[in-house]
């Protein structure tokens, strides 16, 4: 029975009651005869549904033809089909209360969409049309290219962009993952025929995954999917071999000079692992202890204790072929060296001393709880299901994830930190005003200096 009387002012936090299990939504996975993989999951909180049609190829696969070409293809693909001009597409989306986006990352291209359940069929129809019958009208291509030129210039004024661009270059060398965005001249060099070729190669059912989560009846939705997509045909594109990434040894420092910057963006990183690696859950937990949670050691140290920064964090970034670990913070100019010192102190501590059991238990609870919450919205569940499928993880990955987290011991974390938090070989990027921070930056390794355009100023 629930107590209804007024309690005294409790001076200690109430204990946790026993955890309720996650009820897994009704979920179906199937493959159409044309190779299209389909995953449907029901979630009835609102009368809408969310979907994603993904292709297992992205910018990295065509970087030799032009950096960012897959992204440009995705952008122009929504601007016209054989049946509808751009304005018609946008108005039709509004007519059915839908949102749609198309974009391309390093490894994946996707059409994301969300709409009212009562109007699911016309939305699926439009998605199908964009995937199969995009027309790439010349004027739309020209307009999007001009638009992209301005965006590329704007990117170079963002400290966080400049930092991640430099880190990726340093970590990946000649591998396509080294390039996060095209230069202006590379955008100018795009041709419409490059886009249509990427479109023909990538946008095929054998290369595709359709995930939908929402307020629908699975059997009815599956019929709509079959009706809409089954006539589509196309092979999976050939996968090219790529050069090995760089393996930078020893700490080095890369300063990106932004005159007048009133703060310094720090980003340091090293190679790590992909989601398919058996150590993935271990590195996730180790990261959440280090700087992946508000309660983590790094946040408590450089934010809550020292007040150097508002926004410290660390993360493991899994691309399909390789992954990397990074830590970042935007700090005031006077404490660049002090912040880096603490970042390395906390890394080395995790590499040297076992995590005390109570702290480890807290971290296990954190990761497990946050995972449960990520399944509680339509787009959250969609993103989890898509991640599993696109990374070829086992079908029971989501169901067993929390058990795996709960099974980890202090020795696992120590081994994980020693293996992947490679503090001796971390590559350090600092984006800020050279005159204010160069002396501090060079304390941490050989220094190279660049401007925002990537010119070496050393």
């Amino acid at each position, binding site marked *: 029975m629930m107590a209804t009387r007024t*309690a005294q002012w409790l001076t200690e936090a109430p204990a946790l009651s026993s955890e309720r299990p996650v009820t897994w939504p009704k979920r179906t996975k199937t493959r159409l005869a044309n190779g299209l993989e389909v995953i449907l999951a029901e979630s009835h909180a609102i009368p809408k549904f969310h979907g994603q049609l993904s292709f297992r190829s992205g910018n990295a696969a065509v970087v030799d033809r032009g950096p960012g070409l897959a992204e440009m293809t995705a952008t122009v693909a929504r601007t016209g089909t054989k049946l509808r001009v751009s304005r018609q597409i946008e108005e039709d989306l509004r007519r059915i209360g839908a949102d749609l986006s198309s974009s391309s990352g390093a490894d994946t291209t996707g059409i994301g969409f969300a709409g009212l359940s009562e109007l699911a069929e016309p939305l699926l129809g439009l998605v199908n049309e964009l995937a199969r019958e995009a027309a790439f009208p010349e004027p739309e291509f020209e307009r999007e290219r001009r638009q992209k030129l301005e965006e590329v210039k704007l990117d170079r004024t963002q400290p966080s962009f400049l930092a991640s661009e430099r880190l990726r270059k340093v970590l990946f060398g000649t591998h396509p993952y080294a390039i996060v965005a095209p230069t202006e001249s590379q955008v100018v060099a795009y041709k419409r025929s490059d886009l249509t070729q990427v479109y023909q190669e990538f946008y095929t059912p054998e290369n595709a995954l359709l995930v939908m989560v929402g307020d629908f009846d699975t059997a009815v939705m599956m019929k709509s999917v079959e009706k809409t997509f089954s006539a589509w045909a196309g092979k999976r594109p050939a996968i090219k071999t790529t050069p090995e990434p760089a393996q930078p040894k020893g700490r080095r420092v890369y300063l990106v000079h932004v005159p007048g910057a009133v703060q310094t963006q720090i980003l340091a990183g090293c190679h790590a692992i992909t989601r398919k690696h058996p150590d993935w859950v271990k590195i996730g937990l180790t990261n959440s202890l280090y700087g992946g949670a508000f309660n983590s050691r790094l946040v408590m140290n450089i934010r809550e204790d020292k007040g150097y920064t508002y*926004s410290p964090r660390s993360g493991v970034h899994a691309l399909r072929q390789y992954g990397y670990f990074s830590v970042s913070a935007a700090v005031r100019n006077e404490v660049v060296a002090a912040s880096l010192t603490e970042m390395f102190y906390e890394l080395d501590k995790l590499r040297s001393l076992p995590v005390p059991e109570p702290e480890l238990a807290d971290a296990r609870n954190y990761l497990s709880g946050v995972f449960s919450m990520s399944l509680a919205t339509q787009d959250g569940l969609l993103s989890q299901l898509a991640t599993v499928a696109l990374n070829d993880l086992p079908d029971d990955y989501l169901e067993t994830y929390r058990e795996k987290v709960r099974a980890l011991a202090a020795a696992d974390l120590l081994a994980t930190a020693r293996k992947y938090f490679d503090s001796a070989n971390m590559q350090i990027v600092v984006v800020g005003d050279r005159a204010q921070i160069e002396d501090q930056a060079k304390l941490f390794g050989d220094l190279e200096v660049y401007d925002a355009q990537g010119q070496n100023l050393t």
Partner: protein
Amino acid sequence: MNRNQIAMEYTTLANGLKVVVVPDASAPVVTVGVYYKIGFRLEPRGRSGFAHLFEHMMFQGSANAPKMQHIKLINSSGGLLNGSTHYDVTNYYEAMPSNALERVLWLEADRMRALKVDDENLRNQRDVVKEEVRVNVMNQPYGGFPWLDLPPVAFRNWANAHNFYGDFADLDAADLADVQAFFKTYYVPNNAVLLVLGDVKADEGVALAQKYFSDIPAGAPPPFADPREPEQKEERRGEVEEKFGTLPAMAIGYTVPERRTTDWCAMALLDQALHGGRAGRMYRELVLEKQMAVEADGGIGDIFGYNGPTQMVTRILHKPEYSAEKTLAAFDAVIREIQEQGISEDELNQLKVKWRSDYYSTLEGGRGGMPRYGLMHLLACFTLFDNEPQLVNSILDGFLAVKRDEIQAVARKYLRPANRAVVFRAPAKANVKEAA
């Protein structure tokens, strides 16, 4: 049409704390929020940015949960937490597996009852807030544009017109006495609403609210500054230098009708007509058709979340080869067209379907990994502003009833130069040269 009705329990405790419980057992997680009716608008003069700085202080410790404990207790229960300061409310919220519900209620009650912070905490968070302002505003291209740039140009009442993130001198001047006075004045149960959404039964939620919050003493009703604006007679303009960005920018804000009026509903759909993404008239004309702008979007941000003068804002980044005046003229042509021609029945129907669809997404929408943030936010604002959380189930009706002529009428009545402010944010000279 599926109308998505939300069942809730709404009650007020003897100390004035309002409590809203929305049971939903579909996932074993629960979202808790405490909203206080205090925001940027009401912070004391000479203490710009204080409401936000104070929000940070609420994470620094309370009588039985010293510094670090709030964050640690929630994270270690598998939960996430945050807070945010708005014009008229400040919120503190957590989402976690439902087995931690009592723990979170205890924490929120402990800090509502007795904030316990010292000078060291205040110095620490002042530093953190300054880095927040640098990372979001001072060291960012178009930082604070236009949410910090427009109010001082658009409004005359200090409550609406000051720097909400705070001048550094004001942040430095704030002391512990300010913190405790602010807490005592505004952070009383009778100025707050507690929300519990998710894996909890309605009667359990109310009983738990009683258990943890009912013996916190009520305070005097807080004083509220009058946020009303003197009548605006002509267009207002201002300029701000852009330190990093490469493109000239401008923002145009029109003050919107009073909330929950027929005009306000029509204005919301007019906003959708102008700013609804790529289908919106601004984006279509300025970016897609005339190709003068790289960005042209905006709207009435958080339409349910304010309780005083606010604006519908268009934010434009345009190509340097078009002058600011030319770009503004193109913007004006879009406004003029809708004033003269109105909109078609077909367009109105599209706007309504999209509005309804967006509304459902707002209700379901999470924030920072926390489910049901959107529903919580609406319930809280409707409770604090209207004493009527049930509005989440009926507010849509007013928007779906808007007629074509009402849209044209509000376009003529409110989209006038004398009801707007324009801020130009041009790149610094050195910057333009470098980009060329």
